[in-house]
């Protein structure tokens, strides 16, 4: 296997980070009221729903602006703007160029969209680490954002949500947290997928558990920790992809993490599964409260399937940069509850069949 | 510079003229005017119109209508200044005669709004606003005026019901005008309860959508009595402009273009507001009527609605306004409205206004506004017959 964990030639880290979660909330109890006569086990409490004028571009943009506010760099020095999502507004025309233009990073930049279901954002992050780590770029902006659609009456409708996070990758010397290493574990596992002209995805029901989420998350997490010589107790915080409450709690437990280590980065109960934003928002929430020296493990999961794992150490600059933009919890607290009818309107479900 | 008079007028009823096309409507008004007085030779035709392209699928109205009314070959152009197109056409016709280039000019206004649905017409009317920075934000003319009204109410401590008098007065006068689209009374109670369009503007604050055409024939005053016993002299004609976008105005609460235009007109006519016997205002929205009265010196800043409350704007009031129904009651076929205002002044000054007659009126003023105040055309007319 060789050295199957990834580390670039020069150390890189996160120079700035930002979060965004839309304010509308659809309680899972509402979904159950409409589809199950109120009788069901609810996988979460409520999920974030984008407003009529929001989409993956607008979510990415606010997260990116927050990241820039923390990084305090000139946007024209960014050499890559990469947005990962499974709900890019155009099938052909990058989200990334709109974001790049809106933050003032054009024209001297790379741009392009990424897709790998819920790990499209960490996908871009892996590439960003390589881009900066190789010396090809001083800064790379990577974003994971989604406005996921749930098929009405399907179990995933409880949780398919909207949100996003942005990270500016740069040299370790300028970072508020740097990467010790990363690792990707990928197989061809069709647990959840969508054909081009379909509005809603298909999924393999219980197949999405053991053979998909758990196999990849546990393998990636275990492998990275083994290669770096760590166990769960060496970490301050762990963030896992969070499609619901149960999966990340169980994955964390299997890897040896305690609930206190996972609490800060586990947002799904209050905002739902933000798909490409999920593990990345978990990371922004952890960074919001981190202290220098904190040790963080992040393991994402994307159907199809794969996991990206990252091990980070927080540095001094975190103190002064945390408060330079809105905290993840501030967005989560900004909450307007809506009912199922309003949700159907906002998600334009009546135009789709 | 020659003195100019109006020797003939023509108008159609303002209505949903399903059976009439744009050129037919224009012809009805122009031929009606020529039936009153035909000088035998017409030197130019100016056609005021705003949205023929968008709604009727037709531009090039100067040539089209000249030909249709039997004036093929005559100098003819379409004149556009949003809802001020009608009076702008009159102004250009006036200038051609006053400047000695033409002797006999027809200035007409025509608008056909009912060939498209409400949403399409609203979008077409919004072309009068700033497309890049107002309309693209989802604004229409109603909401632009609503922004004005809301701020006005806030700054001057005025309530929505204080504007009712303008609607009540306009509709009262519409009843006596056979050409009016809405000759029905409106009460203050109905005004308060009408359906909200863009708050605070409701259905009864706003003028309706309708079709119509009106026309006047102009000639040098020295020739006028050959064609009519009751010529009406143009004492003044003046246009002023302001920023199209409401957000660019220096002082959004004052119609600067109305002020500039009316000051020029008073100066040309050598009169003051006290000399005006009646005023055809541009009451597309009740807030416009209030702001116009202030700009023209009939009320202090922020006090325009007091005139409506005190009943000073009625036929027997101190300053009769919208004497034949105004835009609100007679109707507002946008590009034609400015010509309707002139036609109605002529009717009043000739003593032909029937039950709406303002007693002993000698000098009348009309002000036609394009957009939210970006083009304002003022005319002052005088009875000389």
């Amino acid at each position, binding site marked *: 296997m060789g050295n199957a964990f990834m580390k670039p030639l020069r150390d890189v880290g996160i120079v700035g980070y930002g979060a965004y979660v839309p304010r509308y909330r659809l309680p899972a109890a509402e979904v159950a009221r409409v589809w199950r006569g109120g009788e069901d086990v609810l996988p979460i409490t409520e999920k974030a729903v984008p407003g009529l004028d*929001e989409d993956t571009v607008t979510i990415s943009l606010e997260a990116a602006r927050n990241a820039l506010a923390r990084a305090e760099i000139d946007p024209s020095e960014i050499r890559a703007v990469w947005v990962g999502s499974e709900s890019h507004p155009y099938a052909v025309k990058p989200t990334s160029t709109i974001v790049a*233009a809106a933050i003032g990073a054009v024209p001297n930049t790379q741009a392009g969209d990424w897709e790998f279901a819920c790990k499209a954002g960490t996908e871009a992050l892996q590439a960003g680490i390589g881009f900066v780590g190789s010396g090809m770029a001083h800064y790379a902006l990577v974003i994971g954002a989604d406005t996921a659609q749930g098929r009405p009456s399907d179990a995933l409708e409880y949780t398919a949500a909207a949100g996003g996070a942005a990270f500016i990758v740069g040299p370790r010397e300028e970072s508020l947290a740097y990467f010790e290493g990363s690792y990707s574990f990928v197989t061809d596992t069709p647990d959840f997928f969508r054909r081009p002209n379909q509005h809603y995805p298909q999924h393999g029901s219980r197949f999405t558990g053991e053979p998909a989420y758990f196999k990849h998350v546990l393998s990636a997490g275990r492998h990275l920790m083994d290669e770096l010589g760590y166990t769960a107790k060496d970490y301050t915080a762990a963030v896992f992809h969070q499609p619901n409450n149960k999966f990340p709690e169980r994955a964390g437990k299997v890897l040896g993490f305690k609930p206190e280590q996972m609490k800060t980065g586990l947002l799904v109960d209050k905002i739902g599964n933000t798909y490409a934003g999920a593990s990345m928002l978990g990371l922004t929430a952890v960074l919001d409260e981190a202290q220098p020296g904190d040790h963080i493990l992040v393991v994402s999961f994307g159907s199809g399937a794969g996991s990206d794992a990252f091990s980070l150490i927080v540095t001094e600059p975190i103190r002064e940069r945390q408060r330079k933009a809105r905290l993840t919890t501030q967005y989560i607290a900004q909450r307007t509850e809506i009912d199922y009818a309003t949700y159907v309107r906002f998600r334009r479900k009546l135009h789709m069949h | 510079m020659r003195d100019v008079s109006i020797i003939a007028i023509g108008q159609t009823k303002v209505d949903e003229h399903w059976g009439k096309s744009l050129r037919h409507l224009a012809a009805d008004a122009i031929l009606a005017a020529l039936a009153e007085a035909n000088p035998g030779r017409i030197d130019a035709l100016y056609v005021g119109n705003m949205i023929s392209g968008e709604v009727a699928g037709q531009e090039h109205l100067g040539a089209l209508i000249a030909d249709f009314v039997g004036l093929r070959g005559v100098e003819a152009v379409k004149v556009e200044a949003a809802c001020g197109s009608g009076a702008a056409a009159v102004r250009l016709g006036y200038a051609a005669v006053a400047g000695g280039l033409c002797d006999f000019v027809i200035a007409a206004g025509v608008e056909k709004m009912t060939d498209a649905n409400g949403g399409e017409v*609203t*979008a077409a009317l919004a072309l009068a606003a700033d497309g890049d920075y*107002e309309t693209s934000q989802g604004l229409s003319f109603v909401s632009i005026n*609503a922004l004005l009204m809301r701020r006005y109410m806030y700054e001057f401590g005025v309530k929505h019901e204080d504007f009712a008098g303008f609607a009540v007065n306009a509709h009262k006068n519409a009843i006596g005008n056979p050409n009016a689209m809405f000759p029905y009374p409106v009460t203050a109670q109905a005004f308060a309860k009408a359906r909200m369009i863009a708050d605070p503007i409701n259905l009864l604050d706003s003028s309706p959508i309708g079709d119509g055409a009106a026309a006047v024939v102009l000639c040098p005053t020295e020739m006028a009595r050959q064609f009519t016993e009751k010529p009406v002299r143009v004492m003044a004609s003046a246009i002023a402009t302001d920023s199209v976008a409401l957000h660019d105005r220096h002082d959004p609460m004052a119609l600067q273009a109305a002020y500039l235009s009316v000051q020029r007109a008073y100066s040309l006519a050598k009169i003051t507001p006290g000399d005006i016997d009646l005023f055809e205002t541009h009451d597309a929205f009740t807030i416009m009527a209030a702001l116009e009265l202030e700009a023209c010196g009939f009320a202090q800043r922020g006090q325009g609605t007091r005139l409506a409350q005190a009943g000073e704007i009625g036929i027997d009031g101190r300053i009769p306004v919208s004497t034949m129904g105004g835009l609100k009651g007679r109707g507002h076929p946008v590009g034609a409205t400015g010509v309707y205002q002139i036609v109605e002044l002529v009717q009043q000054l000739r003593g032909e206004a029937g039950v709406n007659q303002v007693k002993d009126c000698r000098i009348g003023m009309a002000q036609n506004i394009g957009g939210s105040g970006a083009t304002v055309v003022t005319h002052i007319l005088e009875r000389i017959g």
Partner: protein
Amino acid sequence: MRIPRHWRLQDQRYRMVGEVCDNCGEKLFPPRDICPECSKPACTPYTFNGRGEVYSYSTIYQAPEGFEEFVPYTVALVKLDEGPMITAQLTDVEAAEVRIGMPVEMVTRRMLEEGEDGLIIYGYKFRPALAATA
């Protein structure tokens, strides 16, 4: 579809780039190249900070074509910190909560779509100014 027209307005719509008059210092948005105050050329770009307050507002219940699906929505005249006033939609706020004088901040949102298969146009809207940081 009006692609070039929308494309030309990107700097203004995405980043609120206007101008500053080199002669009298007046900040201009939208950019217009000639200062309306002193009539001198004003071509130096100036990027606005996106903060301002509500000067007036109106909630629209009957929308013009293309905006029907957003009804009811609120539009406002916003007086920017740096001086100019602009017209924009308000977002993330209930109609009943809007007040003249309310501090607002710029966000980039979907302004309109040219149909289901056409261009999506993004641009500035304003929401109530949230606490900047914790």
